[in-house]
């Protein structure tokens, strides 16, 4: 869990709570034809960046991000976000793919990942890993948040509170 660094990055505390609790967020990227593409992924928050990891088996979004870094992440599924005080948020930002070490680079996310998906620890055992070798060749998606739209009570028919993080992250 990261909360104190949230203040540094200017990310609203309630949205940090969503990021820390979310089992799923909908990440939208723009493909090479300019079409929107969305995938459900587990988001992590390290105090400055939203981090996700994706297997090279599902590399389409990684290529899309390399071409166009503008992304949006929706944190809005009440079932997938067991936060005590439910709200909804959309975070827009610039993403970067970190794939210089597909074997172990993403291991730095393991503590955050295990906190949300404890089964990962078991699946990472050597014999288990052998069963799904390419699944464990993974890149990191690192998103620098630029703008946050937050619906305090989750009712998106109401106007969101908007936080512009561009100054905070400069």
């Amino acid at each position, binding site marked *: 869990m990261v909360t104190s660094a949230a203040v540094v990055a200017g990310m609203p505390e309630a949205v940090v709570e969503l990021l820390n609790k979310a089992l*799923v967020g909908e990440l939208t990227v723009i493909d090479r034809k300019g079409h929107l593409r969305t995938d459900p992924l587990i988001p992590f928050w390290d105090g400055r960046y939203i981090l996700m990891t994706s297997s090279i088996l599902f590399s389409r979004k990684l290529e899309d991000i390399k071409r166009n870094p503008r992304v949006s992440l929706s944190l809005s599924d*009440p079932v997938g976000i067991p936060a005590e005080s439910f709200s909804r948020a959309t975070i827009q930002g610039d993403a970067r793919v970190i794939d210089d070490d597909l074997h172990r680079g993403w291991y730095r996310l393991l503590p955050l990942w295990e906190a949300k998906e404890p089964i990962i620890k078991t699946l990472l055992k050597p014999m288990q890993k052998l069963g799904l070798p390419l699944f464990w060749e993974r890149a990191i998606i690192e998103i620098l948040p630029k703008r946050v739209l937050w619906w305090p009570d989750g009712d998106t028919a*109401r106007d969101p509170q908007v936080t512009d993080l561009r100054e905070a992250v400069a």
Partner: protein
Amino acid sequence: MNLGEALSRLPDFPHAVLVVLDEGGYPLSVATSFRVVDGTVEVTPASLGQSAVRDAVAAQLVVSHIRPYPGVGYDQRRYIELSGTLSVGGPGWRFFLATRLPFLTATIVPVLLGLASAAYDRHFSPGLAALTLLGAMAVHLGLNVANDIFDTLSGVDAANLTPTKFSGGSRVLQYGLVSLRQMTALAAVFYGVAIIVGLVLVAISGLGLLWLGVAGVLISYFYTAPPLRLVHRGLGELCVALGFGPIMVLGAYFVQTGHYALRPLILSIPVAILVMLILYANEVPDRFADAKTGKRTLVVRMQPAVVIRGYVAAVAVAYLVVIVGVVFGVLPWPTLISLLTIPLAYQTWKGLKAHYDSPYQLMSYLGKNVSLHLYTGLLLVIGVLLGIIVRR
């Protein structure tokens, strides 16, 4: 999976996200609910803040399902992506938004009060009543649309980062739902209708109505329009009180009777005060944007404690006028039933005090404040009509 199969499966998914591309070139996603109707997906309108949702843009709907599994993470996760074109409501819906139709209660109440007062004095023509209502509504809708136009041109609405459904304008221009040209045409049509109806009523009822009508149209237009921009000078509350109080009540009364009288004037005071308080309370969440753009409303000019005390004092005067009116025999005693709304006034005051700095928590109390005007006004109408019965 083909489109038909995907559409048939959508209702099985509890969660949906609508994605569009915003004006800055970023994807913008928002949770929504939906239903499938004849091969199309209708999504519930969602607000994206300052970002414009234009008609006929490419959009994506993503429906998903996840089942958390304690100690493991989750054991089910599936989703469907649908791409298509987003059509932002029909012209009717945009008209509804742009004109802020629900606020017409502020006009209907004083007109009914004027008509009831005329009926109390044994004058009532249904045709003239309908024409009066039409003219008054046209002025009000013209005001709403003109207000959006001038607040957009002056940057007031754009500077408002915490708009609510009661404040910050209709946002149709900010969301790109209606163009400035369309809004200007709409305002011209409403004012045109108002002026024509007004002239017909003057021809029927007498010149005495002309000055009241001219005052109504001028106040309505120059409320936000330059060079007067009355609301920017702290005169907005007074203008609204006059326009939706004495001008409408006395105007409706004059059309029926051909003269003015004390009773409708006294009856207009409580509704004038309460309609003024709608604006006054709605200015609370708007105050920072208003101040930034030089819109010096009363709420901008005063400290929060003074604003709240002002609210209480104004409400008290509204009820006191009814009581004094009855005591002096100007108002029929059944109008005292309007005092039944005092608990609503109390709740609004409590909410205003508790959530002065929280625009979104304040919203439900702003709703109560609108209801306070509506219910008090309608109870006054009922009181006057009951007065006709009890005097027999």
